[in-house]
């Protein structure tokens, strides 16, 4: 028997398998958008027939980072901004495991911005969900990288002088091969998009608009959304970089004018994931590396041969 029998098991899964047996008292505020992410993720995983034991969820720090406590799977609640480097190495070490990373907008676009850019660039085969509530939740309402210009908070009492980041454009420019935005007010679309993202072979970035009723009452996430795939007004080719880029630019500008557009904005099915690239150049073993440690027949090369050749 393989050391990892949960991986790839053919099965029909129930949503509640992804709910912890003994659920800890939720620390999220009533009405928080984070509940919607959790629900969509559970739904997507059940639909794909995943086994909680084959999923690794890596989170950052923030209210969003608490997702691990309410979603049943293997988990690694890392440190602020660092879920991506932890997640991508786990995927390289054992490509069979379904790796999902999640965190807030401060976590992902602020402190972890460098990792975001490079993980997208390398196109690691994983899903990255960013809970975008335009605010720092857990540290009690400071301005975040997605807060609109002029947004007042305790640390920017006169209103932020900065333009917000454009996460979708940033993602596309960095090299993500799947980019989508969904919203807590749109649970069906959210589950569909997350399921697609998990299925996608490459870096799938989902910007998830969530509300923070406690610290960010003016956020636009409450207003009705438009699904660009359902609307005749938005016609663009989701596989064309340039068209996708123009569409994202429009979407990101409109968000701060009060129009919320969601859906899939870019998808590249042809680009090889990082793991495949690395395997193609001979930099990565064909078989999942983690398996070797449990394989009694594995041959463990000794250094002496390399060393004696070179150093004697």
């Amino acid at each position, binding site marked *: 028997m393989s050391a990892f029998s949960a991986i790839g098991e053919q099965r029909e899964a129930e949503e509640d398998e992804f709910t912890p047996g003994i659920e800890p008292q939720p620390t999220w505020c009533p009405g928080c958008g984070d509940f919607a992410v959790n629900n969509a993720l559970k739904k997507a995983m059940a639909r794909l027939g995943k086994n909680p*034991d084959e999923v690794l969820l890596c989170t950052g720090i923030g209210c969003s980072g608490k997702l691990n*406590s309410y979603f*049943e799977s293997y988990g690694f609640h890392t440190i602020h901004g660092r879920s991506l480097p932890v997640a991508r190495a786990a995927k390289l070490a054992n490509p069979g495991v379904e790796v999902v990373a999640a965190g807030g907008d401060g976590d992902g676009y602020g402190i972890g911005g460098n990792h975001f850019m490079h993980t997208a660039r390398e196109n690691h085969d994983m899903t990255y969900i960013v809970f975008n509530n335009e605010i720092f939740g857990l540290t009690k309402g400071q301005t975040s990288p997605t807060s609109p210009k002029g947004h007042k908070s305790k640390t920017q009492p006169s209103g932020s002088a900065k333009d917000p980041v454009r996460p979708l454009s940033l993602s596309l420019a960095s090299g993500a091969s799947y980019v989508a935005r969904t919203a807590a007010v749109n649970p069906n679309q959210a589950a569909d998009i997350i399921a697609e993202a998990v299925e996608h072979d490459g870096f799938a970035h989902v910007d998830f608009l969530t509300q923070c009723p406690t610290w960010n009452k003016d956020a636009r996430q409450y207003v009705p959304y438009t699904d660009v795939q359902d609307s005749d007004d938005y016609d663009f080719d989701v596989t064309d970089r340039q068209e996708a880029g123009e569409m994202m630019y429009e979407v990101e500008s409109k968000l701060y004018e009060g129009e919320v557009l969601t859906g899939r904005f870019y998808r590249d099915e042809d680009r090889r994931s990082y793991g495949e690239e690395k395997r193609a150049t001979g930099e990565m073993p064909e078989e999942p590396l983690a398996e070797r440690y449990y394989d009694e027949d594995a041959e463990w*090369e000794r250094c*002496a041969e390399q060393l004696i050749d070179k150093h004697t």
Partner: protein
Amino acid sequence: MTDQELIWRIAGGSGDGIDSNSRYFAKALMRSGLDVFTHRHYPSRIRGGHTYVEVRATPDGAASRGDGYNFLLALGDSFARNPSEDAYYGNEELKPLTENLDDLREGGIIVYDSGLIDDEQVEEINLEERAEENGWHVYPVDLRGIAKEHGREIMRNNAGIGVTAALLDMDTSEYEGIMEEMWEEDILEANLAVIQDGYEQAQEFDQTHDLSIPDHDGPDEEQALVSGSDAIAYGALDAGCRFISGYPMTPWTDVFTIMSQNLPKFGGISEQVEDEIAAASLALGASHAGVKAMSGSSGGGFALMSEPLGLAEMSETPVVLVEAMRAGPSTGMPTKPEQADLEHVLYTSQGDSSRVVLAPGDQQECYEQIRTAFELAYDYQIPAILVYDQKLQGELRNVDASFFDREPDADPGSVITEEEIAEAAEHHAGKFKRFQYDADDGKEGVSPRSVPGQKGGRFLATGNEHNEAGHISEDPTNRVLQMDRRLGKLASIREELDEKGNQTHHGPEEAEYGIMCWGSHQGTVFEAVDRLNDAGHSVKAIGVSDLMPYPKEEVSAFLESVEECLVVEMNATAQFRGLTQKELGRFGPKLSSLLKYNGNPFEPAEIVEGFESSIEGEELAVSNMKYVPAAGD
């Protein structure tokens, strides 16, 4: 120490082929049966500047660079075109000659490249006069001319080898054999011709000196010429490490490079990533997924790893980090050794530290201790740090090749199988009790570990305080139980380390005085101890490798047995002496310090001198070291 030794120094500009050339030369001497030890000095620049490598060769063991040197091969700095008048590192081709004269011993040999260093320049520095005063023997040779005749100027270094061989009465066949293994046919031919030409020209000289290759027998056993970096990298691979992530920083880059070149051949993965926070985080991710992983850096980069290091402690994710020290603070002196990151490595990151810190004293210890670091990290689910420095990183030394012929260790430590998980009673509503208070697998504080993809092993690893199942918890009782369990591992680790005997003792057991050291200059200290005892003193030394958990009993016994102890280290604030006093809580009045932090490692004679001044309570005559007396009682 031996009277019969050659210390050959080749000097030139970075990029003049000093490094490769000296490596071949050292290897040739080793193959002929001598013991060799190299020391490399180079500035933080890519081309030009004053750089040299020393190769020390003796028939009976070379544990340090030695004192001064007795043969200078000055190539002439071909990159010496720095237009700035007051640039510290030369504007003149002459520097490889002038910069090196102070350390040249009486009666030594100077060979310089008269093709690059012209007579007028030499006249200006009164070389003749100085040579007479010091009994030096000067041989100008047009090395550049010889090389040019056969095609390329860069072969100057090999012309120098030919000259060296003729002057020392050395057979060039070992050296030529190495060239044959390394070079393509056409380049090889030209180089061999250059060596031969140099040899023949030098044979014509009137040989006034009495230096020659030390007498020696043939090799007893096949030897390997390795640096600390080689030994660390190969030790890690034999420890079953199959994942490395890093970001370049001198001097850590060396280990990273060697690992990256070898891992694909071993079925492993190397990742050069965006920064050191990512590097350490990737190592944690790979380890969490079930692969033995390491990362590392030097001072500044290790500072960035501080937070992931704390995460490893709290989430009990095994990982090995190596820290290659260089002179600080900040970017300090990138290519110069220092031992001033000790406190950084011991205490960086928030909270109470639960980590293992080991400091090897030579190449063999590098290999042994990186294996120990992996063993402890994976058996005890704790981060282990190997701290070494720029000196140990780069210096080469011969070691019996058979020493490295060991079984690889594929055991991922405390991970359990799916069958064991299925039978485990602690299964808790689908969640595995990953952080069980009182699991009993014979190792104190260690609970069983599962990895993603295993059936029934689900758990949450988190840097927040958590309960047995991994859920975040601020419950005071749980907090104390978990803290005590994590910190308690250090006691079991101490016992294992005692069994391994990582501390190295040297000198007569009943000696009156002690010297303590840690890390890379252990060999230098031991050599000094031999000389002191030969000179009628009564001294012994201990090289301490375990910094956390600290070997309290062994060091206490050592300190109890001596009158006084000199603590030798390469930093300005006596960090290791401070650690010893903190850990032992006594012996303050017995401990004095000999410190050096000018960027150059200790030479044995300096330690001899420092020891003699310390016991006589005299001022140090040498200005590049500092003596800090005992704290009083």
